[in-house]
């Protein structure tokens, strides 16, 4: 197993592209939310279409544990389900929708992760997790009215 100095860590900016964020979307249910954020990654050429039903399958099979914190879901499938490039998509919702989690519903911050291998992603994921633990960061995400504002929070420009 390689130690962390060998891991080519992908910066959070590199991971979350300017084209893979969308702000203040209205969706009817959790499936539409997964479709929406999946479409961002598909249009940006980061995933194959099959990855979208794969993310839904993982949710259905594993249960809503992917709702990792109040209001926040981290969707993912397996690398072999159709990830072309490491990627992270984010859709913020006008109104939260339930994903079936006993305590953390409703969700209004929908993240979708595509990993090509486990090692490269880990440090970026940790960087994201550290940010998501900060109330001020969450406030900024929720306050972003446009895709551009959302992208700027991650340091990328639209």
């Amino acid at each position, binding site marked *: 197993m390689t130690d962390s100095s060998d891991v080519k860590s992908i910066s959070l900016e590199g991971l979350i592209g300017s084209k893979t964020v969308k702000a203040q979307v209205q969706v009817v249910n959790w499936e539409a939310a997964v479709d929406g954020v999946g479409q961002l990654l598909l249009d940006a050429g980061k995933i194959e279409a099959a990855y979208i039903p794969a993310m839904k399958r*993982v949710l259905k*099979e*594993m*249960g*809503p*544990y*992917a*709702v*990792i*914190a*109040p209001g*926040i879901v*981290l969707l*993912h499938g*397996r690398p072999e389900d159709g990830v072309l490039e490491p990627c992270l998509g984010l859709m913020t919702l006008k109104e939260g929708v339930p994903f079936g*989690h*006993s*305590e*953390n519903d409703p969700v209004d911050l929908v993240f979708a*992760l595509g*990993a090509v291998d*486990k090692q490269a*992603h*880990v440090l970026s*994921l*940790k960087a994201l*997790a*550290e940010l*998501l*633990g900060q109330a001020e960061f969450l406030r900024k995400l929720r306050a972003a009215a446009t895709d551009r504002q959302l992208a700027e929070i991650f340091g990328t420009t639209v």
Partner: protein
Amino acid sequence: MRIATLCGMGFGTSMMLKLFIDDILKAEGIRAEVVPWDLGTFKGERADIVVAPVGMESHLRGATSRVVLIQNLVDKNEIKMKILEAINELSSGKQAG
């Protein structure tokens, strides 16, 4: 002492949790082995403490380890509080026995 983090897929939340716990233990000067599990590997393995997200408790019924459930996986305070509580419980149990 062996601490396992559990998630459905072995990467993602398991790793995140492991890295957070590594940080917490380092800051507290506690030495323990922290290993990420997924539902596939977990059945055959053992650990003193298993840390999992709320929502996975049905998979942990019958576990012999001390189970710690985390509601907010990015809240370091919650993780720290619950993990230290579990470690203290196990340590004091060993000394009394």
